[in-house]
């Protein structure tokens, strides 16, 4: 119980900071929407291609926005040496990880809803297989948030963290990009049963990322 209470404490703190600063709302969400819009401009002459590639383009936009979200999540710990304050708090590293990952996941869910609406409108996509979209979206978001949080703390204390985080995160989340894109394609093409193997991959990845993060975050926080 204490573990979850501490995780909620950290998540609440991060979300309160984001609500107050509005960085997610005013920078990360518009960034995701702009990426989707740029793809639309780039492929405008070929509406069929745009329609078919919508799932991949959606997740590409989300992946790029994840980098901003995780950068923001750890930059707030650098000011005033708040990271030392977090260490001094005596909170378990695993609970800090779960709290920070949950806060990032909540922001990603909101981002996905807004970017999803932009994709439907700009790419002329008909929404089908809502249950599959929901399941794969949740599993992919948890996997993305957990993985990005681990690499965020790993690079947090480094001067080159802004450039290092994308180099570390993007290759690591390739299975999420693949699984989420394929399951979205299956759902939108009216073949939801084809999506379940990909959803299983996403769930397995999410479980692995959360478990590894819970174990590794504490030592990584100490080393940063």
């Amino acid at each position: 119980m204490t573990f979850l209470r501490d995780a909620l404490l950290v998540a609440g703190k991060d979300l309160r900071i984001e609500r107050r600063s509005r960085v997610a709302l005013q920078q990360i969400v518009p960034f995701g929407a702009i990426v989707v819009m740029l793809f639309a401009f780039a492929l405008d002459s070929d509406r069929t291609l745009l329609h078919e590639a919508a799932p991949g383009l959606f997740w590409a936009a989300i992946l790029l926005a994840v980098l901003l979200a995780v950068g923001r999540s750890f930059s707030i710990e650098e000011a005033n040496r708040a990271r030392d304050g977090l260490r001094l708090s005596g909170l378990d590293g695993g609970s800090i990880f779960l709290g920070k990952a949950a806060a990032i996941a909540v922001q990603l869910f909101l981002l996905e809803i807004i970017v999803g609406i932009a994709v439907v409108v700009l790419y002329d996509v008909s929404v089908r297989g809502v249950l599959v979209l929901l399941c794969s979206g949740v599993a992919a978001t948890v996997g993305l948030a957990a993985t990005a949080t681990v690499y965020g703390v790993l690079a947090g204390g480094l001067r080159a963290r802004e450039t290092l985080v994308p180099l570390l995160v993007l290759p690591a989340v390739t299975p999420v990009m693949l699984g989420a894109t394929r399951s979205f394609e299956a759902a939108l093409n009216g073949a939801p049963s084809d999506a379940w193997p990909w959803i299983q991959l996403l769930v397995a990845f999410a479980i692995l990322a959360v478990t590894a993060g819970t174990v590794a975050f504490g030592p990584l926080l100490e080393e940063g």
Partner: protein
Amino acid sequence: MLGRFPALAGADLEVDAGEVLLLSGPNGAGKTTLLRLCAGLLSLRAGEAEVLGVDLRAEPRRVRRAVALVGHETFCYDDLTVAENVRFVARAVGRTAEDADAALERVGLGRVAGVAHARLSQGQRRRLSLANALARKPSLLLLDEPHAGLDDQSRGVLAEVVRSAAGDGCTVMLASHELDLARALCTREVRVVAGQVHPVPPGRGIAAAPPAPEIEASA
């Protein structure tokens, strides 16, 4: 060790429970390093350190929960209010929001409880650090240059907090260059020079403290 540089090689220090110890010495001598070590923020590369009867190397988290450090930075979040910052610190160590609010009142920051940390003056930030420490109700209070940036009124608050903490049995270690002010608060003084801890003989207005050693540190 700080990187490859041995910061406190051969340092040996014992502090009694309830003692108010002054660490004096030149810049770069190792005072801050010693305080951060006692707070569990630095890992020990060699030697032994026991804080509040707990092996620092084996259980740094347990030490951190019982210790409060007031350092050069506030360890606070700019976008949270004063009250939100202190409540977060208090709740993290199992204290209540009431403990946090009481700590804020005690350092005279109750009026600015709803103001964001980013908008505080330097002096208010120092007081907030003190409130963070008090909200934790620590057994060991570590103060690194606590007089810096404080006006006379704030220095009065600091003195009251240190005396009251010591009166409640809390051990205090204080590093300062404001020696007259610090000596008026402390019961013993040691001088830190090049990572070595040297006792300063009584006779400068600092009296010895009661026995019962609870903190041992050597590196």
